[in-house]
């Protein structure tokens, strides 16, 4: 089993992180558009999206039977399925993988739930280290305003009600988010996150993001046309061949 920092793949992995309402999903969607229009093969992967684990997560949340530890483990299982299906194979194939939320979401949320900081980091040892991870920093009152103004109801775990911080879900959500932000801030140095000012106009953030992504695209092939069958076989046999072949336009 390869562990964090040891994977060597020809593809690139970019991730966006931040609290709900930070605008990160908008930014990664725009980045995706741009990369696709530039002719790159882009694979998009979202947090909490494994079809295998979905039922179990839903069941645990609906019945409110998740403890901080099982909440953490079930999300790690979901993430493992994504890693094994959506992240590692495309990276081996030389594609660009974009992830909306990554392991840092788990670290922030789980530690906010009092799960041991080191334990949860070791749990995610199998994760691939991103090429670059963007953290969208936003003042709490802005992100809370964005979420609370267009949401009539907050879900139990989403609001952190299991922590019993406050009996009112909206108040609880605010207190929970505050803890999450504190964890993100600590991770900036620990994981070398790229901090983005999420209060800037959307096009400006996107321009900066593209500038930061562009240098990593050197040598990444663009798949404008269908790949000949023989070449696909090569890729299957030796993933690293993508490195040495010339760009096909």
């Amino acid at each position, binding site marked *: 089993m390869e562990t964090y920092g040891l994977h060597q793949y020809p593809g690139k992995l970019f991730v966006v992180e931040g609290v709900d309402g930070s605008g990160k999903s908008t930014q990664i969607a725009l980045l995706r558009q741009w990369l696709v229009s530039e002719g790159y093969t882009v694979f998009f992967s979202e947090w909490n999206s494994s079809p295998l684990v979905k039922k*179990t997560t839903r069941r645990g949340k609906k019945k409110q039977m998740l403890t901080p530890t099982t909440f953490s483990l079930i999300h790690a299982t979901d993430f493992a399925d994504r890693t094994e299906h959506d992240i590692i194979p495309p990276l081996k194939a030389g594609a660009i993988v974009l992830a909306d939320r990554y392991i840092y979401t788990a670290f922030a949320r789980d530690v906010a739930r009092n799960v041991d900081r080191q334990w949860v980091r*070791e749990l995610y040892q199998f994760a691939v280290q991103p090429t670059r991870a963007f953290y969208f920093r936003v003042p709490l009152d802005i992100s809370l305003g964005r979420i609370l103004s267009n949401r009539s109801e907050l879900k139990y775990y989403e609001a952190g009600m299991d922590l019993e911080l406050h009996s009112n879900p909206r108040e609880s959500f605010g207190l929970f988010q505050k803890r999450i932000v504190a964890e993100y801030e600590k991770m900036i140095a620990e994981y070398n996150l790229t901090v983005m000012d999420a209060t800037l106009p959307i096009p400006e953030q996107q321009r900066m993001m593209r500038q930061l992504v562009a240098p990593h695209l050197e040598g990444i092939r663009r798949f404008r046309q269908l790949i000949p069958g023989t070449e696909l076989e090569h890729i299957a046999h030796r993933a690293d061949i993508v490195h040495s072949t010339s760009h096909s336009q």
Partner: protein
Amino acid sequence: MTALDFYGIDAIGLQRREEVLPGRLIALEGTDGVGRSTQIRLLRPWLESLGYAVVDSEMTRSELAGSGLKEAKEGNTLGTITLNLFYAADFVDRFEHQILPALRAGFIVLADRYIYSLMARALVRGADPQWLRSIYGLALKPDAIFYLRVELEDLVPRVLQKHGFDYWESGMDMRLGEDLFESFVRYQKLMLNEYDKMSKHYHFQVFDAGRSSEEIAVQLKQAIQPLLPNG
């Protein structure tokens, strides 16, 4: 009293909460078809007749992940890391919702497999040992670990008599052999080897599973007796 003693980080925070666990935690380990559940069937009424309340807890039967895990194993998209974590989620749900409450209430917990089987099956599939030890480090050290040890030659007829070779018990996902039998033999050899390695490291009490179940039960009772609150 089960001590608040762990192999790794107490991630659930039992020490922080100063938990008192008047029960006893007894883990029964051994590979597939070795007769663990038969022993639990024999031990339970004996303990109850002595006046002890008993809870038995079986792997992959957690309320949270039991059915999801079963379903995932029936499909064809399950990766090894995902499966290992699914098992861990199942274990921790069982640990927090069955084992801990029972220990708090003074029950004798008979765990039909504990973390060791889960680690063995993950290790033979190439999981990082350090990673596994870290995840399962949150588990309480049992008051006793009984390992029902079987020789491969004895295991084959037992399994055939029971339900035949099963896909997962034969490690077919590892592509070790041409057919179920070949794969079973190679897979179980690897598993038994892992158990033997763990036996020393985790201080298993080893019992010869080749004996009759009545004989084994007598030996297990002798080993359990001194652990009991009024033993």
